[in-house]
């Protein structure tokens, strides 16, 4: 009987204005059968500091956050 813990980014969404939303799922498994799972969500705005953000999400952010997307987002927020 082996109890294991698995953590994975199981959802990433990029909105039209460049917001990146992602969900981290943590699953507790016993012999491959899921006993329980919990979720943690985050959202990131264009050009936000990515320190501590999972690599998979960072890669998406770097692709989505072109200079045009960042400039347009800053225009709409007055940043």
């Amino acid at each position, binding site marked *: 009987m082996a109890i294991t813990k698995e953590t994975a980014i199981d959802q990433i969404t990029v909105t039209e204005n460049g917001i990146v*939303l992602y969900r981290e799922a943590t699953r507790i498994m016993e012999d491959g*059968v*899921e006993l329980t799972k919990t*979720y*943690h*969500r*985050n*959202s*990131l*705005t264009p050009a936000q500091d990515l320190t501590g953000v999972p690599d998979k999400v960072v890669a998406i952010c770097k692709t989505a956050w072109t200079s045009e997307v960042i400039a347009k987002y800053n225009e709409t927020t007055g940043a």
Partner: protein
Amino acid sequence: MTLRSAIITGTANININGTVGATTPSTGAFTTVAANTTVGVGGATPSASGAGISFPATQSASTDANTLDDYEEGTWTPSQGAGLTVVGTFSSAGTYTKIGRSVTIYGRVSGSTTVAVTASNTVFCAGLPFSGGGDNVYPGVAQNNSTTAGMFTQLTTTTIYAVGTMPATTNIYFSTTYFV
């Protein structure tokens, strides 16, 4: 296959898959579902713990006004907004529950010494767990040890604005419900 009715005794999990769910059920009812029984809808694997209804991990959105198509609960991390003055180290925590298109959030932003909102209508935190379509601004309330102030969401930027100022204390707590 049409599921008409069922009586379940003992401990069991029921999975009503997409094939059954795609049909219009005939009149019938679950009359007894034993304790510690979970039911998966939309092909979801029934939870191994507790008793209740398990929804798919990814919402299968319904346009029908009488259909509950999603449930999810979890945590989120509020990030520091430009309008939040932090003395010391910033920390935060939050929880959310999504029922259908309704999202209720709770959050806390803290400073190891203090946090304060010194100007009105500024972003004091960001990182909402869900962004939205439709209406963008939803009102809520923020509170510290001495002051209660209004706040509002801006879903397109997943940010929360403080309506008024809040004096320096260790924590600011806030809550709101919005629709996506």
